């Protein structure tokens, strides 16, 4: 159990001097990563790691230090460093640790004993099964770039002089593969994965079938002509865009003048079809968590309701500075102080299945994957341009595959151009769920 981590955190907090606020975050994780190739284990890594992060706030100044060790002498040195660092920061009246806010922590089913009793041979077998299935899925599959199994068991404890004492643990695992398909000198790739809290929830067949399908359906893809048209986003792509949107709604970006939506609470910022919810208490989410990085209970927050901006997300500091309360959105590892971000975003699904949405598009592109989101989307200006690949839609029918083009718009404009939200909802290995999304008037740049 993770109680020993809380004891370590308590011991750090007990060393606080008069006038000092001290917070300790203590984490421990066990991770296994297995890669297979040619039905053999290519690599098998298994290791336990741990760390401590210590934050000291004194006279409105904050200092921080961390170490990848729970050795008592290292922890003592880390506390001394954090204390020393605090002396060099600028005074800020809003600085301070989180305080208990009375919001009860929901018990989420995030930890499964089944993972611990699942042996290395069984893990290898799952990865081998994925590779075998993807190679057998289609004669045009020429090989794999990777087939892997990964799992992790992580525990974290947070304690503060302000009365926070939180502890949590969770398990997760996945299988994933990246396949190559070839035909007539053309090579295309596709990925597939399956995610769960325990190995019994994994579906290697689905991971393999998705990878093979994504790779083979792109064979023969050409560059499309440049035009403005309607795009239909695959749930995988929608989730990545929604994740970016999360940045613009975080309290830190809002307070520091880096959010497009800073002055727009209560205003219409999107099509009325758009309802955006951050809900890390949804146990189906890969990023579900019952407490945030400062030890407060996480909660469901509606950020945009039917196109109207309702709420930003906050941690203890940004909330205090904005004159509100934390929404339980502190995000951190042990190597940093808490930032603020959305934890699990979902676009509320609409009534129409994806196939019907595609049938309703006369001239468009189904976008199956995007690349270069980090270099092509500026969440401060809203300028958006990403590499893409997918399938042309003509007269409501899926037509030829297309690649090596970009889709461009702005975040502001895209939100208003949402024509439909699909009824499908996919849980993906990221902090946002996916749903099919139809967006009008996007520039496709190709030949």
């Amino acid at each position: 159990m993770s109680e020993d981590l809380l004891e370590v955190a308590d011991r750090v907090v007990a060393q606080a001097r008069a006038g000092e606020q001290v917070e300790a975050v203590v984490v421990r994780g066990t991770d296994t990563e297995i890669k297979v190739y040619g039905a053999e284990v290519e690599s098998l890594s298994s290791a336990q790691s741990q760390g401590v992060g210590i934050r000291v706030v004194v006279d409105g100044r904050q200092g921080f230090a961390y170490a990848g060790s729970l050795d008592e002498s290292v922890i003592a040195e880390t506390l001394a460093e954090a204390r020393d660092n605090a002396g060099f920061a600028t005074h800020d009246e809003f600085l301070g640790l989180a305080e208990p806010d009375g919001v009860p922590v929901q018990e989420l089913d995030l930890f499964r004993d089944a993972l611990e009793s699942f042996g290395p041979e069984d893990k290898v077998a799952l990865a081998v099964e994925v590779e075998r299935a993807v190679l057998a899925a289609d004669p045009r599959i020429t090989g794999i770039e990777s087939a892997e199994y990964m799992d992790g068991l992580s525990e974290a404890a947070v304690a503060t002089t302000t009365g926070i004492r939180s502890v949590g643990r969770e398990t997760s695992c996945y299988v994933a593969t990246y396949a190559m398909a070839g035909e007539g000198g053309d090579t295309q790739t596709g990925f597939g994965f399956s995610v769960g809290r325990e190995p019994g929830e994994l579906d290697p067949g689905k991971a393999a079938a998705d990878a093979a399908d994504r790779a083979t359906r792109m064979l023969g893809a050409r560059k499309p002509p440049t035009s403005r048209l309607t795009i239909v986003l695959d749930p995988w792509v929608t989730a990545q865009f929604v994740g970016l949107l999360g940045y613009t709604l975080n309290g830190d970006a809002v307070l520091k003048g880096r959010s497009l939506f800073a002055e727009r609470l209560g205003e219409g910022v999107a099509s009325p079809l758009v309802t955006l919810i951050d809900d890390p208490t949804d146990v189906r989410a890969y990023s579900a968590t019952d407490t945030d990085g400062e030890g407060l209970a996480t909660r469901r927050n509606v950020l945009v309701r039917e196109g109207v901006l309702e709420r930003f997300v906050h941690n203890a500091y940004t909330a205090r500075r904005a004159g509100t309360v934390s929404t339980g959105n502190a995000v951190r590892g042990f190597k940093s102080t808490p930032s603020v971000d959305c934890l699990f975003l979902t676009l509320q699904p609409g009534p129409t299945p994806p196939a019907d949405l595609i049938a309703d598009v006369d001239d468009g592109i189904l976008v199956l994957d995007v690349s270069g989101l980090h270099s092509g989307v500026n969440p401060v200006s809203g300028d958006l341009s990403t590499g893409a690949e997918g399938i042309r839609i003509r007269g409501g029918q899926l037509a030829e595959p297309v690649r090596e083009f970009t889709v461009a718009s702005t975040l502001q404009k895209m939100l208003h151009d949402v024509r439909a939200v699909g009824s499908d909802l996919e849980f993906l290995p990221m902090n946002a769920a996916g749903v099919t999304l139809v967006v009008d008037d996007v520039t496709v740049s190709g030949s």
Partner: protein
Amino acid sequence: MLEEVLGAALRTGGEFAEVFAEDRRSSSAVLDDGRVEELTSGRDRGAGIRVVVGDTTGFAHTADLTEDGLLAAAEAAAAAAKGGGGGTNTVALTRRNGNRGYAIETYPGDVPKARKVELLTRADEVARSVGDAISQVSVSYGDNRRRILVANSDGLLAEDDTVRTFFAVSCVASGDTGMQTGRESVGLTVGFELFDLYDIDELARRAADRALTKLAARPAPSGQMPVVIASGGGGVLFHEACGHGLEADLVSKGASVFRDRVGQRVASPGVTVVDDGTMAKEWGNIAIDDEGNPAQRNVLIEDGILTDYMWDQLRARKEGRPSSGNGRRQSYQHLPMVRMTNTYLLAGTDDPDDIVASTEKGVLVKHLGGGQVNTATGDFVFGMTEAYLIEGGQVTEPLREGNLIGNGPEVLQRIDALGDDFAMGPPGTCGKDGQGVPVGDGVPTLRVSSLTIGGTAA
């Protein structure tokens, strides 16, 4: 003790065993919104042990550097690799350290924290003084000292002590057209003398200017046209267009468009691409790689002909050839793989001004953002964070941000001008398979005759 640990790692029949020990101390400081938010100190220390049996690698790591801790990790790695044989293995180690060829002048750990904070506040003041439209500034400072020791069952024992120092300024400018951002960064494999080599005021001004310029920018065009990349704007184009595709681990799985192409023309005549870990002081500089092999200067493409891939120990061993010194890892918690160091394109002979003047309609990219590549198809993207329209051979209006997209083998053949003005670009972090390592890149002014610009304008 290392000999005993390696012996234990081989006890179950492993053919190759390695201990990689690392001690990293880092410090950083951030100023944002006019306040020094915090200073952070970090310490990571541990060892990773790998055992190779046939095509299988077993790996374990530990933060416990005592003999007991290392032996336990060695046994875990050996069990993961699961060899069939057994017996006693003795390993005799010979020390072979890398030579960096220059010394660190001022260790950042010896510099008072107050001095680091002064740099932050200075850069903030300068950036804000550039124009009233500068509405937000953040400045970050970082340094780290990474000591590594590598010992393996081939008898190698090598150590390195690497210091890197980094500084970045990010600005937001606000106007009638909304907000725009500008960022500048410098980073070298040196100590605090970084600030003797670079002028922080100049850096802050350039970041602010970049944000201000873009307030007046028009949407980037869409469609294909010639693209001029400015000298030192960033070699991320080559990092993505061919660098990753020349990594032997991807090549060996057939996951590269450059497989089976050694000896063939893959780029325009005059194009010579080099990966060079020995480049003094550059961000991707290493004395030895993370497998203990000395850094090398490796010519990958010479005058348009593909000459070689980049290699790590594992892949090279299989092929019966030496490693090229490109085995790198993020930390002791990670397995090494083939990675770039400083990747650059050698200068040509063209006058940079003539390259622009001879371009009728196109885009000049002065500063590049990050990129991404699919090595199996060769399709890659990279961002433009400062770009201008070229009309009638003249640089005219600034453009808003966007990605450019191309196909590596096609783009390399479309380089039709190479300037005589080579310069290295800003420091980068290259991500592969979840691991980030510091890399450098550089280019002279060059032109690609046709690339797809991912804008919204006609």
